[in-house]
């Protein structure tokens, strides 16, 4: 899927949502949900060759161990952001806040080995 196709799909979805809003407003939310998740999954597919490329070029360097952590953190951030946006669209702000908190906590957990490494480094320095 290219950018133009995505734009077309989004415009069509917007029209469908507008029609459903007047006829059956409860379906409008589901249409939005389906389209958002589809576009998000397709976007991830677009990122795949980029991820592979970055992994290949960083393979022989000392930063190779950090690349998966960065990708995971970015992925979680994106997923949480999309979910929070959907929740906000459905007027569920409280749920949006919770998922954001969960996302932050998970990014922190992923970063824990890095924090541990930094502390070990500080310990080595102060020995």
């Amino acid at each position, binding site marked *: 899927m290219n950018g133009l196709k995505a734009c077309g799909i989004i415009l069509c979805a917007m029209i469908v949502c507008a029609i459903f809003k007047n006829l059956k407003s409860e379906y409008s939310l589901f249409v939005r949900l389906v389209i958002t998740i589809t576009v998000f999954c397709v976007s991830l597919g677009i990122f795949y060759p980029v991820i592979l490329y*970055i992994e290949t*070029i*960083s393979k022989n*360097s*000392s*930063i190779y161990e*950090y*690349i998966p*952590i*960065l990708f995971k*953190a*970015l992925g979680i*951030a*994106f997923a*949480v*952001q999309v979910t*929070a*946006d959907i929740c906000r669209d459905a007027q569920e702000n409280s749920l949006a806040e919770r998922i*954001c908190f969960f*996302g*932050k906590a998970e*990014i*922190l957990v*992923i*970063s824990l080995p*890095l*924090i541990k*490494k*930094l502390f070990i*480094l*500080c310990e*080595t*320095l*102060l020995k």
Partner: protein
Amino acid sequence: MKNLRILIFALFLIIFFSLTVFSQSIEKDIVSSIDKELNDFKSTLPDYVVDFFPEGLLDGDFSSLINNEVNEKTFVDTIVSYLLSGLDTVLKNFSSILLLIIIISIFNALKNSFSDTNIGNSFSICSTLCISITVFQICVNLANNANSYIKLLCNTMNSFAPIMTAMMLLGGQTSSAVVLNTSMVLFISLTDAFLLSFMLPLIKMCLSFGCVKSLGSSCDFSGISKTVKTAFVSVTGFVMSVFIFVLSYKSTLSQSADTISLKTARFAISSLAPIVGSSINDSLRTVTSSLTLIKNSCGVIAIIVIAVMMMPIIINLFLNKLSFSLLSSLCKIVGSEKEGAIIEEADSVCGFLLTLVCCTCVLFIFALTIFIKTNAGTIS
């Protein structure tokens, strides 16, 4: 009867006034001790320093030094070889950090599309941690390397001080030998303690502040770091000046004392031996000049040893500093201000380590120059 009396008197003299006379060649002892000290000195040197010198120079054969076999070309060749070998690691580190900066800046651009800034900030901490660990790991290695090189230099100086003392004793500079040896030993111990137990931990402390700051801590350590940095420059300058000042005035005073002693000896020789006095004086002058030449050659070798020994760490620190400064500029170009600040911190730490190592080198080179300059050449 008279002959008998003379015989008895002679026997009496022989029996009661005969003294056992011992003679001991002090010079021989000193020369053998120099040989031993030279071997000890050579054993403390790392292989790359020994390889730098022509065959036999470190064993006391100074002909290659006098024949100018150790010249500018040798130094330039050595510097180039160290540069090339150091460049390999530095470039590897540089490319790794550059790659990380590019990836992080791309991710930061994606992150900016988030409507929720908190999620973006959490991701920022993760990316900053990656870059700070990579950068500070290099800095920690550099600090440990600087530590071991300074230790090596102090050990080398400790093993060289007795050689110079023995040379001075041979040349009749007793006061200078005693005073300068005492000062030198104290000086080396103080430098060792001051640099390795005070200055280096101070630099490491700054580095730790930088590490903690990279966690996105709300604590602002910049004030403390700034004070430590200012104190570092002032204290280093002050201590180095005091060391050089003390060594200089001590050497001047002891040199004067030695000059007076030698002039007195010369006067006594001229007065007591009126016919051969001048030739003895000439012989004394020749011997003193020859010993001064040997002493100066030894001192010059020690200076070259210091320069060659510290060259790898100085070049390594310089290349790393250059790479960090280039990376921090690149961070500003791609808009990664936070990562740029961390790399700038590493850059300043490299600068301090470079200052510390260079100061140590210059300090010992000055001390050796004072040793060389303190000679019996002032006697007329």
